[in-house]
């Protein structure tokens, strides 16, 4: 009887959970709940705070405000150990496994069990669990020999072995093939029927609809509501996910005198493990135009920009058209230095500012000089030009810095970004690529960056802008190219497109046969 009473209250309930990192609020008063024998999807764009929220349930972070209830009782989860005690198991997006250990060793890691350490006995129990839920796993295999999906299986069994009643999966299908995804869903359904509460974080709408009982939507750290899967559809969910259109006063000048500047044809590339990251990307960037690139984080945006900048090995064609002569140059397979020697003025503002863009321990002048260090013939450095340019940047972009001799890592993110963008623009580029240039910046600094991008557009530069805020992309760009899992899922006119349309394109699965006919 008591057991049944407990089943009536939610397995886990969050009440007004808030978490801040510095002055960024990752979760703003989020409340939701899951019952036993139910699958809840948590849906949201990148940076909407899904993972942060789940990390608070699993004890990685501690909430600043709010309460967590497990089976109706309020609990305090300070560490992953506490989470186990309340039978909460989390399967992280990046697996937490020790490569040189066997599956069984990984599964029993950290378990507080008394008695002799007997790996055979554990192996037997793991085999039984596998049979119960239909997993296919050899417990004595080493993790480094396993495929991604097998590693995920190990993670799930690890949680079950600890007696998890509440299972959280962070983007479990991001790394799986469609067949593996189906298999995983079957197992999840079986676990649900077994009375477990399952939370699955995802941004794939069709998975939400096919798997979950209810959907909670987060939008920019705020809770946007929960709906029953049976009573909703893709359009409604997208609208909840992207939020109401915010009007931003970003000026957008008319495109004039636009000519093709950079033509990418059939571009494909693989990551070091051999998985395809970009598949058959074809587009043209025109001069005097801002081409926005939208997509879920990790859909291949970074690889695309790096491929153009000569930092990735790729297949396909990258052709640059000289603005004056109209001559065509092939950029594929060339190093950044060779590209520059061709007279191609390509500027790249990478997403990793202090890692790829600048040297944190060097001062402003030296960082500005990184672009022009090989100028001049003397063996000694001539800092005067760079120093002049730095002074000019500080004045024009209102960079706040104690002096030009301050190491850039001591500047705030916005000021670092201004130095970086300023330096790249000072090279008078004909193609300017910027990846997430306003990430982590306050509103004023963001607008400075938008203004600089617009200026470049008016100067006839082909600007490629990778962004994450759809409102900004829509207000700033002329055209928006949407990438989904390494493929172009559509190129739309930013003046007429809606947020929902882009949201749907971002989460759409592009089928092989749909390739090609997507241009404009």
């Amino acid at each position, binding site marked *: 009887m008591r057991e049944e009473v407990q089943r009536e209250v939610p397995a886990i309930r969050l009440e007004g959970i808030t978490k801040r990192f510095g002055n960024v609020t990752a979760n703003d008063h989020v409340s939701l709940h899951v019952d036993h024998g139910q699958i809840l999807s948590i849906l949201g764009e990148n940076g909407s705070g899904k993972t942060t929220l789940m990390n608070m349930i699993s004890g990685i972070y501690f909430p600043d405000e709010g309460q967590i209830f497990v089976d109706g009782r309020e609990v305090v989860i300070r560490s992953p150990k506490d989470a186990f005690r309340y039978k909460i198991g989390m399967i992280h997006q990046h697996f937490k496994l020790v490569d040189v250990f066997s599956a069984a060793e990984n599964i029993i*890691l*950290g378990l507080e069990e008394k008695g002799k*350490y007997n790996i055979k006995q554990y192996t037997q129990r793991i085999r039984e669990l596998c049979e119960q839920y239909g997993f296919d796993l050899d417990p004595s295999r080493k993790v480094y020999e396993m495929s991604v999906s097998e590693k995920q299986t190990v993670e799930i069994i690890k949680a079950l072995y600890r007696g998890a009643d509440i299972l959280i999966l962070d983007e479990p299908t991001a790394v799986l093939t469609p067949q593996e995804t189906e298999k995983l869903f079957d197992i999840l359904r079986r676990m649900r029927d077994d009375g477990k509460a399952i939370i699955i974080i995802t941004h794939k709408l069709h998975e939400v609809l096919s798997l979950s009982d209810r959907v909670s939507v987060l939008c920019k750290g705020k809770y946007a509501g929960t709906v029953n899967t049976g009573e909703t559809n893709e359009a409604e969910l997208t609208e909840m996910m992207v939020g109401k259109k915010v009007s931003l006063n970003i000026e957008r000048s008319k495109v004039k005198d636009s000519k093709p500047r950079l033509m990418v044809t059939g571009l494909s590339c693989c990551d070091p493990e051999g998985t395809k990251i970009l598949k058959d990307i074809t587009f043209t960037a025109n001069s005097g135009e801002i081409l926005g690139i939208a997509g879920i984080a990790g859909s291949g945006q970074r690889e695309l920009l790096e491929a153009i900048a000569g930092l990735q090995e790729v297949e396909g064609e990258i052709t640059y058209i000289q603005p004056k002569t109209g001559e065509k140059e092939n950029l594929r397979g060339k190093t950044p230095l060779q590209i520059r020697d061709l007279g191609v003025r390509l500027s790249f503002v990478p997403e990793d500012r202090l890692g790829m863009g600048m040297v944190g321990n060097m001062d402003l002048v030296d960082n500005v000089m990184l672009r022009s260090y090989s100028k001049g013939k003397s063996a000694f450095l001539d800092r005067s030009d760079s120093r002049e340019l730095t002074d000019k940047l500080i004045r024009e972009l209102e960079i706040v810095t104690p002096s030009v001799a301050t190491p850039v890592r001591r500047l705030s993110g916005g000021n670092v970004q201004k130095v970086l963008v300023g330096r790249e623009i000072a090279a008078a580029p004909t193609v300017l690529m910027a990846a997430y240039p306003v990430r982590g910046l306050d509103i004023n600094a963001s607008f400075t960056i938008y203004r600089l991008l617009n200026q470049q557009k008016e100067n006839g530069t082909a600007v490629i802008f990778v962004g994450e805020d759809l409102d900004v992309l829509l207000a700033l760009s002329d055209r928006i190219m949407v990438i989904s899992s390494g493929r172009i899922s559509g190129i739309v006119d930013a003046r007429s497109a809606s947020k929902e349309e882009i949201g749907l394109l971002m989460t759409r699965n592009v089928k092989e046969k749909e390739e090609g006919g997507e241009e404009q």
Partner: protein
Amino acid sequence: MWADFLQRAIMQGIPLLYGSTGEIMTEKSGNLNLGIPGIMYVGGIGGVIGAFLYEQNTAVLNPFLAVFLPLMCSILASLLMGLIYCFLTVSLRANQNVTGLALTTFGVGIGNFFGGSLAKLAGSDVPSINLTATSNYFRQSLPFAKDLGWFGQIFLSHGFLTYLAIAIALGCSFVLTKTRVGLYLRAVGENPATADAAGISVGTYKYLATCIGSVIAGLGGLSYVMDYANGVWSNDGFGDRGWLAIALVIFAVWRPNLSILGSILFGGLYIIHNYIPDLDVSGQELFKMIPYLVTIVFLVVTSIGRKREAQPPASLGLPYFREER
């Protein structure tokens, strides 16, 4: 002559075995402690201080205390060094290489300082201290060892520290591969984030493994002075054995039981020049190079082989901090 060579090789190898076993335990927790040469040096001088003070203050040595006091002093001294290393690298997350190298310089300095001071107290002109009486207790071997011919000479003629070294190495191997504690320790060294998420206290394991490892390594310094050098401490006499112990870690592919054989091999290579007739000084130096050459060749071979089990712990040398994303 063969029996003599092997006996000397074992004697030479035992300090290395202590050093490498200690460093293996440390590295298994993900701490790359390059302070091992300094810690071994401090372990040695710690024992010397204990023995010196005891010898100075009693007329007749009690056999138990003559062994026990130096042993405790050595353990305490190297434990302190281990704690300094842990505090800097685990609690304050200082760079492990810099901290380790600093500890080596510091340890050698401390050792030479006390070595010089004690020599002055003893009224000696040269910076060397003679503790033969204490050393005799340390070198006490089985009485019937002499009667057993070559077998006795090679295997039974050593002091108890030799057998302790082998026992510790075997014990460490057992702990690492056959116990839950060993599994958790290896997890910490391979992937601290995973260990943390599994509820293992990363800091505790790092502290314990590093401190225990330091104590074990410190015993190597003691065994060098008392066993190998017959109780004669002379400043800088320890030589480059500390670095050799670290090289031995790589050679033993992070397995203390292999380190037993490795230490005897390294010990033999270290003294082989004495057994080759008609070598001039430059020739001797060339032969002294062999252990390092062997290590380099071995590194090349294991790196090409890329066998995952023969690689260092994956997060060796990296500090761990949970809130970092």
